[in-house]
């Protein structure tokens, strides 16, 4: 296996892209621009998964979020009349709730960062994990967690059927 190359550089690049994307999503007036910024953030996230030696999750992230869900998002946004939206107020005046929520989340992060060091690995991951990442996940999903996995898929099926039933008047 090859040693990782320029890890801090790529980490800061991807993290910076993600943060920029996230900020642009909420500050852009044009909904299509927001969606595109969200796609950039999601792709940067896929890059971070790759850095964590989880190529399978990265691949699923690209194919599901960036390639599937966001295309449907754009599909809907393009049909919305954007001119009317641009005249509306962009932010609700809920400073207090926003600050409280952000403060709570920040506090949580700080607590975990200071007190939870024992939980996380503080050294590099053992190499070679990347080469059989998919196989390991498949063995876990279809072996140890098979029951939970099948129930989750059943739940999704029920959700799909429910959506069709509720959306369609005459079946």
């Amino acid at each position, binding site marked *: 296996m090859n040693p990782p190359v320029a890890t801090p550089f790529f980490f800061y690049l991807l993290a910076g892209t993600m943060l920029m994307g996230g900020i642009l999503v909420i500050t852009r007036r044009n909904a299509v621009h927001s969606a595109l910024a969200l796609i950039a953030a999601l792709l940067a996230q896929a890059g971070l998964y790759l850095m964590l030696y989880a190529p*399978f999750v990265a691949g*699923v992230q*690209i*194919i599901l979020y*960036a390639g599937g869900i966001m295309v449907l998002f754009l*599909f809907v946004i*393009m049909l919305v009349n954007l001119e009317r939206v641009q005249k509306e107020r962009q932010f609700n005046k809920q400073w207090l709730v926003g600050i409280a929520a952000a403060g709570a989340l920040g506090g949580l992060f700080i607590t975990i960062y200071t007190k939870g060091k024992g939980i996380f690995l503080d050294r590099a991951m053992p190499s070679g994990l990347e080469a059989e*990442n*998919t196989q390991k996940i*498949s063995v876990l999903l279809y072996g140890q967690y098979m029951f939970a996995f099948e129930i989750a898929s059943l739940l999704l099926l029920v959700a799909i059927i429910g959506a069709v039933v509720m959306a369609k008047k005459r079946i």
Partner: protein
Amino acid sequence: MQPIIDYITSYLNSTQTPGAAGNFFWAFVYILLVFLGLSVAVIAMNWLERKILAHMQVRLGPMRVGPHGLLQPIADAIKLLLKEDIMPAEADSFVFWIAPFIVVLAAFTVFVVVPFGPTHAITDMNIGILFMLGVSSLSVLGIVMAGWASNSHYPLIGALRSSAQMVSYEVAMGLAVVSAILMTSLHGLGLYGAGSAGTGDTGTLSMIGIVAAQQEQHVWFVFKFFPLGLIAFFIFAIAMVAETNRAPFDLPEAESELTAGFHTEYSGFRWSLFFLAEYSAMIAVSSIAVTLWLGGWLRPFPNLLHGTTWDLVFNLFPGITFLFLAAICFYSTARMPKHPYFKIQTMGLAGFGALLALIGFVLFVPAVFVRVQDIYWFAMKVAAFMYLYIWYRGTFPRYRFDQLMKVGWKILLPMGLGLLILTAVMGMRSELQHWVASIL
């Protein structure tokens, strides 16, 4: 100096791809080679498509620029680069500007994992096929952006059609791919039980691993569990035409209804990027089909007809192919009109034939043909698909949009689901047979 030379030569005896061996120099060289090869293939496809379509319609096609129009693609490229670059006044300039680049990036990036041979790939990823499907599904984003940013009616309708079509056919395509991946995990007994049992494992998503599994199981997956593999291949072959927006599924750019669909407002260099992306996406999906079902770089009958004699026979194919092309060139040279106006064209065609013959002779050198024969077989299989694309375009009338959706959701999707279940059942059966045989 010496460490650099050592670094470069150290890869030469490697049995891995440059990406896996961690050799940046050779990875870079491979990237350049793939880029160059793709560009040449797109240029060749441009000429071949016009020529073959013309002959299917009893026309001559391009004949003026160069002998038999051979220089036509180059003339077209120069014309496109010199054209004025127009951007609509009401267009969203940033999105309009970036859309063609996204389409091109998505179409070219997938070639990182395409295996032209056991070592002839830029790199081999654990998630190879997932990466290819994921990145190629990003190209629809570029198309949607192009259609929306043009701020015009036809492009918007084209983009809407395109996104609906690509998202629908991705589902059927994914199911067909999954049934092929399922086959990689089995102990193979080959077609009709011929050959030896391979090693059953957890299966693989790696492009090189998929081809290796076919070699181990002594069967191309298109023939495995006949006709299940064939049906999966069939579903993929239909879905991939819809994914690349080609006839008879070219509704997003239906010229009789939408002028040119999502790229109506593009011109010059930007338009040529869409053109480039369309053709390299066609090559990319064809390579997925070849890798998954047609044995990738494997030559016909690698296990049945082996030994030094057969190896030599199959190794001679690349050279013979080029000599055959050269022979066609020389035959056409002899048939050129004898009028002095055609003197330069005749000389040019003879020169082109000589070049092809030279390549053919170089391919007879043992050191060369051993290294390129896997690339040759891969390219020949992909070329067959490219011909099919042109053939479809010359043959089938365009689908209506409701027909397109019906084919995707009501025919291909249930077929794919049933096929996946049947493949799993047949796989269990063959695994049980193997298990019983190992006990007795």
